[in-house]
């Protein structure tokens, strides 16, 4: 193995390779190119041979498969990735910053004694080492963390890197895992979908989405008035649903619904990454927020910097 090799660990759920897997492959390829190494991709558990076919895309030099169980289990992933890293000795270990990634990447890094930087939105190779770009303060500030030399682990934010495409003919290497699957400390019993209620916000053309800026539950009346006047459908960011003010089925974002309405009106929503992941592909985004630095304005077609308690009633009046 040459210095500068990259190992990217993919993920899947319920028989489907998740999108972040091909994004990891392209991020990994760019890093391997910059450091003159090879790109190794790994897939753990499930139908690994089928996944290996799907992962035979441009830029992948080798696919490593570890057949062990069906679905994600962090004990299996930690053991498998540790074994692969010990075997392949990659300088750079790329993992997904998905919910499952968050459940094993820090443990792998700690166990391998590699520094870890999470949730990268951009990774550059510089003369001083690696520059990992990430966001802080609810996406208000971007910071760059430099990693000088030596082995490290980086987790990559889903949806930020172009997915790898094309086809290639990488070497596929099957690895055995020396782990008793019946003696794990955690057992996945199954999955359940959250009850989403009777409104399907993914079908709506015009979503009026409300966030923390509404402050109090009784203020939702303002939004209902606007929805009545315009025929829009009400959706929300996470805090509103966490507070129990609207049902879970109305939540837009990473852990809720992904929506693509014609118009998405974001009221009092700052635009943290988890929310944006669920609505950035709306045809038109309009935002109302008091904070001119709110990241929601970065992706908005139209923005109103103002107090929703003044703007919303004025808007409702225009439609009444």
């Amino acid at each position, binding site marked *: 193995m040459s210095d500068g090799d990259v190992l990217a660990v993919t993920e899947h*759920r319920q028989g489907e390779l998740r999108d972040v897997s091909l994004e990891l492959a392209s991020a990994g390829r760019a890093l391997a190119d910059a450091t003159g190494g090879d790109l190794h991709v790994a897939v753990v558990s499930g139908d690994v041979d089928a996944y290996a076919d799907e992962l035979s895309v441009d830029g992948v030099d080798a696919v490593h498969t570890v057949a062990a169980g069906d679905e994600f289990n*962090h004990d299996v992933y*930690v053991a498998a990735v540790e074994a692969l890293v010990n075997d392949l000795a990659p300088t750079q270990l790329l993992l997904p*910053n*998905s*919910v*499952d990634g*968050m*459940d*094993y*990447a*820090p*443990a792998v*890094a*700690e*166990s391998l*004694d590699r*520094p*870890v*930087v*999470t*949730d990268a939105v951009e990774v550059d190779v510089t003369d001083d080492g690696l520059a990992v770009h*990430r*966001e*802080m*303060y*609810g996406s*208000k*500030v971007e910071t760059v*963390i430099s990693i000088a030399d030596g082995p490290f682990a980086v987790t990559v934010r889903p949806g930020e890197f172009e997915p790898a495409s094309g086809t290639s003919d990488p070497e596929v290497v099957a690895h055995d895992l020396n782990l008793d699957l019946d003696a794990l*400390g*955690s*057992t*996945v*019993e*199954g*999955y*359940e*979908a*959250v009850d*989403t209620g009777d409104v399907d916000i993914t079908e709506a053309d015009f979503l009026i989405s409300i966030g923390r800026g509404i402050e109090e539950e009784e203020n939702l009346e303002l939004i209902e008035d606007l929805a009545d006047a315009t025929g829009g459908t009400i959706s929300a960011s*996470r*805090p509103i*649903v*966490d*507070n*129990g003010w609207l049902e*879970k*089925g109305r*939540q837009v974002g*990473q*852990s*809720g*619904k*992904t929506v693509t309405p014609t118009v998405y009106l974001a009221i009092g929503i700052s635009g943290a990454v988890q929310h944006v992941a669920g609505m950035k592909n709306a045809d038109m985004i309009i935002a109302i927020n*008091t*904070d*001119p*630095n709110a990241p929601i304005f970065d992706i908005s077609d139209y923005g109103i910097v103002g107090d929703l308690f003044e703007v919303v009633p004025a808007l409702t009046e225009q439609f009444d």
Partner: protein
Amino acid sequence: MKVLVTVKESADIADDFAVDDDGIDETYVEYDLNEWDDYAVETGVQLAEAGIADEVVGVTIGPERADETIRKALAKGVDRAVRVWDDALAGQDLLDVSTKAHLLAAVAEDEDADLVLSGVQASDDSFGATGVALAERLGYEWAAVVSDLDVNADAGEARVNRELEGGLQERLTVDLPAVFTIQTGINEPRYASLRGIRQAQSKEIAPKTPTDIGVET
């Protein structure tokens, strides 16, 4: 059983903040109890109220200023707290997950905690790595992004839901001792009562240096 809740003071920045080479000027920064940790505190206090936890201990890494934040957790029902700090840490990059995991692990071992609750992530740096790194360091089991928790102390296990992407939940059983990283929405964090705030003034916050707990930094 004994429950340890990790608590972080989280920085929030004013709308009109300015950035220079050193980062964000302190005048734009306000500190508060990290939103995710508020849910972890509530989870711990509810376990005590249900008679499952005998004691709920808070732990934070931070300077004396952080007493104000951890006292908010004490006012909500955490029994006592440990604050780890020395000036050598001030110069270090606290984004270093491993340093935090080592310090918290030393406290968890010192306290002989059966269950450690931490927030999924901090609202300021959004690293989301400390809890799981801590579990690995301790040799405990864990689950990240927990949206439902049912502890069965007698059976030595917990039934847990993890909140996955797209409205999907994963159900799993996890052996204790364990670290759980708690997602917002798992409960409704209480407001501190006046009585709670008064009581918090007399609750112990034990300052410890890394050396006190046997960690070289």
